[in-house]
Each structure stands twice: as C-alpha cells, then as structure tokens.
C-alpha cells in the first residue's frame, strides 16, 4: 500500500513537472535573429526556431529575455532550461553549459575603413557586444573597445564616429550593412574566419538537463529533415545558414 501511494505521488510530481513550461532564454535586440517585431511580439530566426523546437518536443515554452552577456550564466545556473541565442561554441562556454548539435556555422564581420588588424592594435575603440566572442577576442588582444549592451546601439556608435570599427557576428552585421544609413558612414566590411571569431553556433542547455539536450538534438534533426528549419531560414535570412 505504501508503495502504491509512493507511486501515485511520483506520478503526480511528474505530471506537475510535465505541466510546467520550459523556460527559454532569448535576446531581444539582435535583428534578424531575435528581436521584438513591429507588432510587439518576439520574433527572429532564433525565436521561431525555439518555437518550432517546442512544438516538435510537444512542450509549452516560456521565453525569457536576457542580455547576451547574461545568457551563459543563467543557463549554467539553471535559471532557464535552454537558450536559443546565437552562441559560438567555445571551450569556456562548454565548461559551463551543454551545447546541442551545431545549428549553423558563423563568421564574424569587421566593419571599418581600415582592414582587420590581424596583428596590430586598433588605434581607436572597436565596438563589440557585451558577452560576445568578439569582446573576448578584443580583450585577449587588449584592444581599446566600446562595449555595448545590445546590437541596436552598435549602429549609433558606428554612424556617430564614436568608434573606429565594429566586430560583429555575420548575421547581425548583415543587418547593419543593409541599413540605409550604412552607406553614408563610408565603412567597408570584411568577413573574418579566424577560429576565435568563427565556428559552430549551437543552442545552450542547462547542465542539469542532459535528457532535454538529447530531445533538442532529435528535434533539431527533425526540423532540418522536414524542411521547417529552411522555411525559418528563408523568413529571416537571404542566404542558407546550412
């Protein structure tokens, strides 16, 4: 009889757990990957990918907006279950969170009148986003940097001449270049494929949820097989990510 009650309690606990929505971290200002649309709703490649994954896994999901620099920590501490943010997989991040299979491969883009300073120090600040691999790259090389909180601040910094250059992920960089104001800045772009600034982008998962990691991997495979990944790709990017 005791066993029966224990079993019932377990079932009830599991049911309660199953009913809770998964908490998904996204960033809100990285067009076209993750942003608030004109209708006030969160959208973007990452957001729609997260929605598709939740549907595939048949779970309810609740989006939590975070700054890029917070994402790894909130995932690592289990404050969210997973984050669909374009995080490059780095050894440092991998030591804190779990990563799914790669979603796509990313590059960085150097926006400046000068060529990318492979060895020398930039003479004036370089704009980077707080918490990005680009910031980590600049820090490692003791670059003078203007650390911004969001991608949207970048354009203002660039156009105002506050910074000499910007180092961004290729997807958000594209958005800056496509902006009508970009032409007047006189900046040029340069795609950077250095290992520290390029690589695989993946979904980060709480280290407490290895089972969820497995489910997300299966979900990603399914989305890439059934064409939904490509439909989301078409919706937000002019080129194929895969």
């Amino acid at each position, binding site marked *: 009889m005791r066993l029966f009650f224990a079993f019932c309690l377990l079932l009830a606990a599991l049911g309660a757990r199953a009913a809770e929505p998964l908490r998904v971290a996204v960033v809100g200002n990285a067009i076209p990957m993750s942003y608030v649309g004109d209708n006030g709703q969160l959208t973007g490649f990452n957001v729609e990918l997260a929605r598709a994954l939740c549907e595939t896994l048949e779970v309810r999901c609740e989006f939590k907006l975070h700054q890029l620099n917070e994402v790894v920590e909130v995932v690592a501490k289990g404050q969210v279950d997973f984050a669909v943010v374009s995080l490059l997989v780095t050894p440092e991040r991998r030591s804190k969170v779990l990563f799914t299979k790669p979603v796509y491969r990313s590059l960085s*883009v150097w926006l400046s009148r000068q060529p990318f300073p492979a060895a020398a120090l930039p003479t004036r600040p370089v704009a980077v986003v707080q918490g990005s691999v680009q910031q980590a790259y600049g820090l490692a090389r003791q670059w003078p940097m203007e650390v911004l909180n969001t991608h949207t601040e970048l354009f203002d910094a660039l156009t105002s001449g506050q910074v000499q250059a910007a180092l961004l992920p290729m997807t958000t960089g594209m958005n800056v270049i*496509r902006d009508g104001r970009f032409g007047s800045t006189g900046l040029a772009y340069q*795609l950077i494929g250095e290992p520290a600034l390029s690589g695989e982008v993946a979904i980060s998962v709480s280290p407490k949820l290895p089972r969820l990691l497995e489910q997300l991997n299966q979900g990603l495979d399914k989305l*890439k*097989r059934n064409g939904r990944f490509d439909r989301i790709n078409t919706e937000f990017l002019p*080129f*194929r990510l895969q």
Partner: protein
Amino acid sequence: MRHPAPQPPPQNTKPTRTGLSAGLLFSALAGVVLALVLAIEGWRGLEQLRLLEQLTVMQQRTIPDALQAQRLVRNLETMRLEGERLLALPAPVERMPSMYVIDVIVENPTVQADGRVAPVLKQAQQVLRALARKTPLTNADRSQWADESQALARLADRITAESIERFNAEVEQTRRSVDRNLWQLGVSVVVLTVSLLCFVLALYSTLIRPLRHISDALAGLRRGQHPPPLPPGTWAPSEIGDVHQAMDQLDLLMQENETIRKDLLTSANTDSLTGLFNRRHFMEQAHLALARAKRTHSPVTLAIADLDHFKSVNDTLGHAAGDLVLKAVAQRIRSTLRETDIHCRYGGEEFAFVFPDTALAEAGLLANRLRESIAATAIPVDGGQSVPISLSLGLVEVLGMPLDVALNQADQAMYRAKVAGRNRIEVALPVTDPA
C-alpha cells in the same frame, strides 16, 4: 460330420523394416523441416535487414544530402539574384549589402566543402567583386556577369539532377530489395508447402496406411481370417513391424485355441472307441431332426440296433476282440449309411439311427443294407480268427411322436426282432402323436 483340421497361418510378408522407430523418423523429419524453415527465414531476414539498412541510409544520409543539395541550389540562386541586384544599382556603396550576402554565401562551410560548387562560386564572387567597385558598368561587364550567372544556373541544375539521380538509385535499390523479398517469400511458401506435403505423405505412408492395414487385419482376425501381409515394398517403422509380429502371434494363438476348442467339442460329442457320436450328442441331434421334420411335415425314421450274441464274443474272445468288433461295425455303419443320416453308439453294443427326410420304406431298405453289410463278412480279430456278427434292428417312423416314445417303440421292435430269431428287422406299429 468331420471337423476341419486347424490351418497353419499363411507366411505373413513382414513390412520392410529398417529398425528406425517412428519417433526417431518424425523427429528427424521435423528437424529437417525446422532447419529448412530456419534457413529460409534466415535468408529472408538477411534481405530484410539489408532493406532496413537501405531505408536507414535513405533516411539518415540520402534525404539529408538531398536537402543539403537543395540548400546549395538555393544559395546559388540567391547568389544570382544578389548579383543581378548588385548590377542594377548605380553606386558601389549601394551594392554593398548584396556583395555581403554573396561573400557570406561563398564562405558557407557547405559551399566550401563542395568541390563542384566552391570554384564556380569563387569565380563568380571575384567577377562580382570587381564589378561592384566599377561604375558605370558597360555591356561587356554585364555580359561577363551573364556568363557567370549562366554557369551558376547550370551548376544548380547539375546539383539538382545529381541529387535526384542519387535518390532514384537508392529508391531503385530499395525496390529491388523488396522484389527479392517478395520472390523469397514465394520460394518460402513453395518450400514450406512441399515440406508439409512430404511430412504428411511420410505420415500417411509410414503410419496412417499401415495403421489402417492393421485395423483391417484386426477386423479380419475377429472373423477368423489370417492377417494379410502389407503390400510388398511398403516401408514401415519398427513399431508397425512389432504390431505385425504381435498380430501374427495372436493369429497363431487363435488358431491353436480353435483347434483345441474343436478337439474338445469332438471329444465331448464322440464315443472314444468307435468314433461315432455318443448318446448325449445323438439325443441333441435327434431332437433337432425330429423338430425339423415336424415343422416341415417331412418324414423321419428312427432305428435301434443291437449286435447279436455280442456278450459271447466278449466272454470267449475277450474284451479286446469285442472292441475290435465294435470298431468294425462302426466303420461299416459309416460306410453304408448316408452323410445325412445320424448315428451313434447308444449303449454297450447298441446303436441308434435317425434317417431324416426318409419314410419307413426307404429307411427299411437302408437298415437292411446295413444289416446285410454286417452279416455278410465276419470281422477279423487277433489270432487270425474271424467273428461272424449280426445285427437286430427295430424301426419306427416317428410321425410327430416325442423322441423318447419313438426310441421306446424302436427298442420294442428291436426286441421283437431278437425274439424272432435275430439278424432281422422289425418295424414298430405306427403310433400318432396324441398331441
């Protein structure tokens, strides 16, 4: 009235035997069938595994590859579109977003990894990069891009065609595998059907048919027939052979029992000295004969006979000589009378007769023939002597009277014959049945 001598059972043809038991035989057959089933199902299983492997390859490699090819084609088309857009814009700064998309596409790892695509895209990228900086664009510039754009379109077609071709090849391979599996299924059904038929045939020929034969033979045994042999060349397991042996032994035993029964019957009904019926059996037979005559209203005559002066033969020549005389008289009775006549040793030197379907006159002729036959020749006994012997007979036509009455009347008539001088026949006066 002779009993048939017991017949020896015919030589039974034993079934062909190998000493192999039915259990062993059918275990071996079942083993062969099982081995066949396992072999065929294993064969089919391997093909199904191959099919499963092909489907897995299709799902995990071919379909993703086809999707990847589709993505490459989309990138090629995007590159053409962005190239057209780039050339349509007048200022180099306006061309930058399109050039950026083109550069990102060229840097895509999937593009870089594809040996067919990478050089063509690189070439187109270089052309566009040069044209993007140039203003104004000449017709020659546009023509140069048109060539590159055409190359991109052809490459897109090639990738699509190759992807479809590969998919078709996989589908064809899968279809052939399914065909093989269907064919194997057919073979499997045929082999299993044939195996089952062979099994049933073996069961029928080695067990069911011999068992049916045994059943018929046992039914025959009940009717007194010898068990027939199995048809020549019939193969039967050792158990069937054992049953046949047992049946032969049973048949022999039944034959011996029948002989003993008949011997016992003969002993019970026969006088041991003369071989004639004894008085008890005669009485049974006489009753039956009289009843039958009464039922059919046919005539029947009864007689009692007594050897004349037989006591003096015993007294002067001894009982052995007397026995010889009785045996000789019995022999003459058997040889003189008809098969249908019933006769017996009624007492010491007394004999009784029933002549069925015979009226008094005819019976008188028969009795007289017997009397003459006995009186005609002396009977040789030990010591070279011959004993002349005669018979006195009393006859009575029954005419529906009870047996004891008829016997009594015949006896009285026989005494009258004795009194009248012996070696003669006297007829009792007819007496009707008071009933």
